[in-house]
C-alpha cells in the first residue's frame, strides 16, 4: 500500500476521511510542530474519535459523584472498583457494541462481551458475571428478528464458552431502535484488594510486552466507525467487524490472572478500540511516562502489514503488559503454558513520547498525553429542546376511552415483547457456571451471586427506559438510576456503585445534545441523592439511522451488597393467603407507559416524575422489611404498572391474586401507570403490624391490596366493579409464549 505523504495529507485533506476536522488537524500539527505522517494521523484519528475520547460527554463527567467510602477506583481506569469488605472488591463496567452489532449481530455482540471482560480481568479481577442491555426495533420486522437472534446467540456463544455466567439483562423493543440496535454489555469481577492492578506503564526501562492473540488487519478504524452515523455505506465498511475467539479469551483470562498473581506485573491494559495505539498511550499517559515500540516484533497473523495497520489493528484477545525488568521469562513461561505468545515489543521511557519503530525506522513519534483522553479536544455544542416534545407533552390520557373490563389489556401487555418473559433469551445463556448464581434470571428484579467463603451476596442489575428519557431526558434519567437501585433493593441488597452507558444520537444536532445534557444531569443528580457513586461509564453517540436518532438511552449498571445472602429476596409470591401490599405511594401516571403505547402505538405524555427523597425512603423501608424477615416477596413496579407487576409475581409462583384497588380514579391509570417509588410486597398476615411499623418509621405509605390465591387473578375497583378476571394460567401463557411465537 502506498501511503500518502504528510504534504499530500494536508493538500488532499485526507484527515477528513479519517473523521478529523480541519481544526483538529491544525491542532495536531501544532502539537507536533510539524505535519503528521499517515501513521501518526491514523493514531490521532482513532484516539480522538468520539468513541475513545468522549469529546462531547467528557465536559459533563465532573457532574458525577465519583467518591465514596467504598470506592477504591472511580472513573479513569479500565473499570471501577468498589469495596465489599473482608478484603474483597467488586470490579464492574458497561461497554456498548452498537455499531458492530448492527452490521454483524453475532460477532458484534460476541466481541462486545469479550471486550468488556478484558476490562475486568485487566484489573486483576476474575470475571464472575455479565449482563446485557439490548434495544431493537419491533419484532414484526424480519431484519429485527435477525438482529435480535444474532445478538443473543453471539452473547451466548462468547459468554458460555469463556465460562462467565450471563446472569441478567434487559431487552426493549421499540421502533425507535429499528435501524440502530443497542447492545450494551456489563461485566462484573471479583478481586482481592491486594490484587487490584492498574494500567500504568511506569519504571523507565521496563519491558513492554504484547500478549495473547496474533495481530491481523481486523477492525482497523473500528473506533471511528463507532463514532459515525450508520448509513447504507456502513455495510461497505465491513472489515471493521471483528470475529471473536472465546477460546483464546478463556486462555487469556487464566494466563493474565496467573500472571498478576505471580506479582511481576507493573501495569497491564487490554487492547480494545484502537488496539496498540490506545493501550500504549493510555498506559504511558496515566504513568506520566513514555513508551518506545518496535512494531516489527509484534506477532502477526498476516504478512505485509504496515506500521499504520499494526498500530490501529483491533484484533481481539490481546493485552499490553509492562512487567518488572527481570520478569520477561516469567511472563513468557506463564503464557507458553496456555499456548499464547508473549513478546517484548518495546520499553518504558521517561520522555512522555510514544515512539514507534518498524525495525530500524522511526515511523511515529507523538506525545502520549496529547493522544490520551485528557489530551483530546472537547466540544460544547448548542442545545435545544426537540420540537417533538410539544406534541408528546400535549397528550392527555383522558383521550383514552375508559372501559369496564381490562382483562384483555392486561393479557396484551404481558404479550408485548418488551414486558414478556425473556426466558427465550436467558435459557441460551449459561447463567450457572462458576456456581455463584443464587438468584437466577427471571426470579427477581436483579441477579444475586454469592461470594464463596463469605456469607455475602452481590446483586447486579442493568436498566434504562429509553422511552421515558425520550419524553423527558432529565426525569427519565433520574428514573433510570432510581429503578436500578429499586431493583437491587428488592433482592435485599444495598446499592454501592453504578456504571453508566450513554447511548445517544448525533451530538452535533442541538436536540440530541440537549437530550444528552439533560440526561447526564439526571443521572448525576440521582446518583448523588441516592448516595450511589459513579465508578465508571461509557458513551456511544451517533446512534442514528437514516438521519433519525434512537431514543436517548442512558443505561445504568448497578451493584449492590447483601451482607447476609440468606436474607435475599425474590419477586414470586410464596404462599396462598399471604397479604399483597403496596410499599410506596399511590401512582397514576400513564405518560410514556406501555399501556399508552398499546392504545396509541406511540410514546406520549410526561414520563413518571421522580421524587428522590421518596425513592430513598422507600428503598430504606424495603431493605428493613427484608432484613427483618417480614416479607416473602418484593417486586418493583415498572413497565406495565401495578397490574403487570402483580401478574408477574403470580406467574413466577403459579399462584393467583385477588386484588381490590383501594383508590378512586381511572382504572387504567391505577392498573397500568408506571409511577416510580413503588414496590409490591407479599407477607404472611401475621407480619402486617411489624411491616406497618417499619414503613411508618421510614414515612412510607403501606397499602393493603389483597391476598394471594391458588390461581384466580382478579382486580376489583374501589366500588366493587370487577376490572380484570382471569387465571394465572392464561397470564402465564401470554407472557411465556410472546417471544417464542414471534421468533418461530
Amino acid at each position, binding site marked *: 500500500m502506498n501511503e500518502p505523504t504528510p504534504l499530500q495529507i494536508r493538500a488532499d485533506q485526507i484527515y477528513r476521511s479519517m473523521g478529523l476536522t480541519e481544526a483538529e488537524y491544525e491542532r495536531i500539527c501544532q502539537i507536533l510542530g510539524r505535519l503528521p505522517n499517515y501513521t501518526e494521523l491514523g493514531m490521532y484519528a482513532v484516539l480522538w474519535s468520539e468513541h475513545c475520547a468522549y469529546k462531547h460527554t467528557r465536559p459533563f463527567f465532573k457532574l458525577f459523584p465519583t467518591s465514596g467510602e467504598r470506592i477504591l477506583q472511580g472513573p479513569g481506569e479500565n473499570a471501577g472498583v468498589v469495596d465489599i469488605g473482608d478484603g474483597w472488591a467488586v470490579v464492574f463496567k458497561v461497554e456498548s457494541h452498537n455499531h458492530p452489532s448492527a*452490521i*454483524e449481530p453475532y*460477532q458484534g455482540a460476541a466481541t462486545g462481551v469479550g471486550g468488556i471482560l478484558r476490562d475486568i480481568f485487566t484489573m486483576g479481577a476474575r470475571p464472575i458475571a455479565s449482563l446485557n442491555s439490548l434495544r431493537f426495533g419491533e419484532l414484526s420486522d424480519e431484519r429485527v428478528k435477525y438482529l435480535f437472534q444474532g445478538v443473543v446467540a453471539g452473547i451466548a456463544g462468547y459468554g458460555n464458552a469463556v465460562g462467565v455466567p450471563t446472569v441478567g439483562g434487559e431487552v426493549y423493543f421499540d421502533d425507535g431502535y429499528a435501524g440502530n440496535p443497542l447492545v450494551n454489555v456489563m461485566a462484573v469481577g471479583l478481586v482481592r484488594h491486594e490484587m487490584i492492578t492498574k494500567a500504568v506503564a511506569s519504571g523507565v526501562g521496563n519491558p513492554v510486552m504484547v500478549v495473547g*492473540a496474533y495481530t*491481523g*488487519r*481486523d477492525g482497523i478504524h473500528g473506533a471511528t466507525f463507532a463514532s459515525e452515523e450508520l448509513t447504507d455505506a456502513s*455495510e461497505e465498511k*465491513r*472489515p471493521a*467487524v*471483528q*470475529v*471473536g*475467539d*472465546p*477460546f*483464546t479469551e478463556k486462555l487469556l483470562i487464566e494466563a493474565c490472572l496467573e500472571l498478576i498473581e505471580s506479582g511481576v506485573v507493573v501495569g497491564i491494559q487490554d487492547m480494545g478500540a484502537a488496539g496498540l495505539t490506545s493501550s500504549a498511550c493510555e498506559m504511558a499517559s496515566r504513568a506520566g511516562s513514555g513508551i518506545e515500540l518496535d512494531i516489527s516484533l509484534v506477532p502477526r*497473523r*498476516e504478512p505485509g502489514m504496515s506500521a499504520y495497520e499494526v498500530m490501529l489493528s483491533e*484484533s*481481539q484477545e490481546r493485552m499490553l503488559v509492562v512487567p518488572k525488568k527481570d520478569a520477561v521469562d516469567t511472563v513468557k513461561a506463564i503464557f507458553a503454558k496456555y*499456548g499464547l505468545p508473549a513478546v517484548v515489543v518495546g520499553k518504558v521511557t521517561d520522555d512522555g513520547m510514544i515512539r514507534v519503530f518498524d525495525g530500524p525506522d522511526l515511523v511515529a513519534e507523538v506525545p502520549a498525553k496529547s493522544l490520551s483522553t485528557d489530551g483530546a479536544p472537547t466540544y460544547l455544542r448548542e442545545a435545544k429542546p426537540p420540537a417533538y416534545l410539544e406534541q408528546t407533552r400535549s397528550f392527555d390520557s383522558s383521550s383514552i376511552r375508559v372501559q369496564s373490563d381490562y382483562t384483555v389489556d392486561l393479557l396484551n401487555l404481558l404479550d408485548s415483547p418488551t414486558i414478556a418473559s425473556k426466558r427465550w433469551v436467558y435459557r441460551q445463556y449459561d447463567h450457572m457456571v462458576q456456581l455463584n448464581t443464587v438468584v437466577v434470571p427471571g426470579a427477581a428484579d436483579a441477579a444475586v451471586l454469592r461470594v464463596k467463603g463469605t456469607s455475602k451476596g452481590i446483586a447486579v442489575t442493568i436498566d434504562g427506559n429509553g422511552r421515558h428519557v425520550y419524553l423527558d431526558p432529565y426525569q427519565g434519567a433520574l428514573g433510570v438510576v432510581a429503578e436500578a437501585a429499586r431493583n437491587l433493593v428488592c433482592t435485599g441488597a444495598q446499592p454501592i456503585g453504578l456504571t453508566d452507558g450513554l447511548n445517544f444520537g448525533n451530538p452535533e444536532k442541538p436536540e440530541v445534545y440537549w437530550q444528552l445534557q439533560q440526561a447526564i444531569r439526571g443521572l448525576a443528580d440521582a446518583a448523588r441523592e441516592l448516595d450511589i457513586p459513579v465508578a465508571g461509564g461509557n458513551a456511544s453517540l451517533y446512534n442514528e439511522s437514516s438521519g433519525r436518532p434512537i431514543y436517548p438511552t442512558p443505561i445504568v449498571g448497578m451493584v449492590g451488597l447483601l451482607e447476609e445472602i440468606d436474607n435475599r429476596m425474590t419477586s414470586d409470591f410464596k404462599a396462598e393467603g399471604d397479604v399483597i401490599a403496596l410499599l410506596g405511594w399511590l401512582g397514576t401516571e400513564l405518560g410514556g407507559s406501555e399501556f399508552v403505547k398499546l392504545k396509541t402505538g406511540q410514546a406520549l405524555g410526561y414520563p413518571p416524575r421522580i421524587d428522590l427523597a421518596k425513592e430513598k425512603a422507600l428503598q430504606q423501608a424495603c431493605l428493613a422489611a427484608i432484613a427483618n424477615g417480614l416479607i416473602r416477596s418484593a417486586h418493583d413496579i415498572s413497565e406495565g404498572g401495578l397490574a403487570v407487576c402483580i401478574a408477574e409475581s403470580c406467574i413466577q409462583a403459579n399462584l393467583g391474586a385477588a386484588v381490590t384497588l383501594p383508590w378512586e380514579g381511572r382504572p387504567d391509570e391505577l392498573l397500568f401507570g408506571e409511577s416510580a417509588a413503588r414496590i409490591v410486597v407479599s407477607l404472611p398476615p401475621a407480619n402486617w403490624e411489624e411491616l406497618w411499623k417499619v414503613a411508618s418509621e421510614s414515612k412510607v405509605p403501606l397499602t393493603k391490596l389483597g391476598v394471594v390465591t391458588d390461581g384466580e387473578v382478579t382486580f376489583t375497583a374501589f366500588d366493587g366493579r370487577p376490572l380484570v378476571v382471569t387465571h394465572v394460567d392464561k397470564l402465564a401463557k401470554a407472557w411465556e409464549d410472546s417471544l417464542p411465537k414471534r421468533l418461530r
Partner: protein
Amino acid sequence: MYKAAIKVILKPGVLDPQGKAVASGLASLGFSQVKSVRVGKYIEVLLDASSQQEAAAQVEEMAKRLLANPVIEHYELTVELVEGEELV
C-alpha cells in the same frame, strides 16, 4: 432435480478461530507439514428447476440471502443434474 453444492468460506483477513485450533490440533498430532487451515461450511441443496441455469440462479440468490453472511464470508457454488429425491 438439481443438486447444488455451496462452499462458504471466511473472507481473507477475517480471523478463523476454528481453523487456528484445528491447525494446532493437527500439529500436536504430528502433522508438522501443515501450514494453515481454514474451516468453512459445505452446504448441499436439492431443488427442482426447469434448467441448470435457473437452478444456479436460484441457489446464487439463496447463498446471498441466507447461506452465507456477506459481512465476513464469501461462497462458491456448483450445480449438477441428479436423479432421485434425496440427498445422500
